[in-house]
């Protein structure tokens, strides 16, 4: 399958890049915070499912800031590799359909997002395991694996709209700063809409979907937000591909 060749090529390009190191470092942050918090016995934690609680608490900083930041940064980094080294002309004169190049890049981005979520889960398990070894009385409970998987899947789907918008912006702008700046403004608008302006429009704002998933007042609509994220992704990926297909490549 030629699309797999494009995917392989795009994956190889990320070797030794910041995107890979960042994936691990950023994913470790949430579980580490949760670890430090749970080192001391916590009555509230003891009443529920401590392992599951540990997973879900570690997810909050991921959904609010780390995952959106990671996506914004990785999108910009991926495109910057081609722009910095002026490799677009070689990529586009290689015998691969443009749709494969486009999808190869987007799939690698999604692979990095999933790797980020996987790293977060592994770090959560690791920190939880350390706590368990240190004091089995703290945890000891069972883990609701189904809930963990569902929540991970939801987080990924909710991030799709943001991924597609940042992918499009990063593909469109040749410099590194513009996609980062637009992404950060987009992210910053989410808490502003939520807390400052208290507007319902936040429920349609793709940068806010992962944040809404950890806000108790909005959890009920999480399936709707997932659909919004998917629709946003389809729309922006279509726009991005049309522009990519017709782009001029300067020498």
């Amino acid at each position, binding site marked *: 399958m030629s699309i797999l*060749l494009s995917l392989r*090529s795009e994956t*190889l390009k990320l070797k030794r890049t910041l995107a890979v190191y960042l994936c691990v470092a950023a994913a470790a942050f949430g579980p580490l915070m949760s670890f430090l918090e749970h080192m001391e016995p916590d009555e509230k934690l003891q009443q529920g499912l401590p392992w599951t609680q540990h997973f879900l608490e570690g997810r909050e900083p991921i959904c609010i800031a780390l995952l959106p930041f990671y996506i914004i940064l990785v999108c910009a980094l991926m495109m910057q*590799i081609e722009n910095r*080294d002026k*490799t677009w*002309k070689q990529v586009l*004169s290689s015998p691969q359909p443009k749709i494969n190049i486009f999808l190869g890049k987007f799939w690698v981005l999604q692979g990095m997002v999933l790797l980020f979520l996987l790293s977060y889960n592994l770090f959560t398990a690791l920190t939880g395991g350390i706590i368990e070894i240190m004091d089995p009385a703290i945890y000891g409970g069972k883990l609701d694996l189904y809930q963990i998987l569902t929540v991970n899947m939801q987080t990924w789907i909710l991030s799709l709209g943001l991924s597609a918008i940042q992918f499009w912006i990063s593909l469109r702008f040749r410099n590194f700063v513009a996609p980062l700046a637009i992404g950060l403004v987009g992210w910053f608008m989410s808490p502003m809409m939520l807390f400052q302006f208290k507007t319902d429009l936040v429920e349609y704002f793709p940068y806010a979907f992962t944040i809404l998933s950890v806000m108790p007042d909005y959890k009920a609509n999480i399936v709707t937000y997932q659909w919004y994220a998917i629709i946003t992704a389809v729309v922006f990926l279509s726009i991005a591909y049309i522009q990519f297909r017709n782009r001029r490549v300067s020498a």
Partner: protein
Amino acid sequence: MNNSCAIKTTGLSYHYSKNVQTLFGINLNVERGSIYGFLGPNGSGKTTTLSLLLGLLPHQRGDIEIFGQHLHASRINILKKIGSLIETPSLYSHLTAKENLEIYRPFYGVKRERIKEVLQIVGLEDTGKKTTKKFSLGMKQRLAIAVALLPNPELLILDEPSNGLDPGGIIELRQLVKDLNQQHGMTIVISSHILSEVEKMVSHLGIIYKGKMLFEGTLPQLHALRQKDARLLIKTSDNTAALPLLATYGPQVVGDAIAVHCSSNNDIAAIARSVMESNLDLFLLQPEENNLEQLFINLTTDAS
């Protein structure tokens, strides 16, 4: 289309913005097995033409056929047979030479051994784990040529490949181009803005100036054209006295020399004889340098 043609463009035109036309109806005919020098000063439209051949720019007007197939109908099949280097090297600076080649290898369906082969051809087989950001410009240029050679292409397009190469590197490149053409039968299109740089290796030439093709033909045809416009520079002990002797050759004073039109060796001998027989000392008798700029001027004048 003639089967002997590797590239044929018909009426190829392109504009980057509405008011600025870059190419005007370019008709390019590159024969299979030839080394085609694509010459023109900077900004004349060479890179734009080559970018169109590789599908890097959206098609606007005119037709492109490569190996008898229309580029836009069979883009992937055509690109599998083409190796290219467009201006600056396109390399991933955080990857090694081998990794850079590995990025493209699967698309051409060549074996891993081919990577070693092309690195040997360009003399970069010992770069090991050194990433390309630590390469000199010459090394980068050679690696970019290795990328172009990776598919063992039937057609090799090199846009200003000697940029960044030292004189030794330029000689090596020239030899490499000849070897690839003679031993592997590759058709090679090589662009340059320096006539002397390519005329030592090409069999055919196309000259482009301000987006228009001024000349296309074989090297002997170009030489004949240059011969037609050739001038001889003469310096004597008394140029004023020499001028009437050279009246039949259309003499012109150029600095401290006299330039005369001369179309054959017999003319040269006759000029030398008449100067010597008039008891004038002959200090200089040499062909005027017919460089690319002069050639463009001549061709432009001819065209108008």
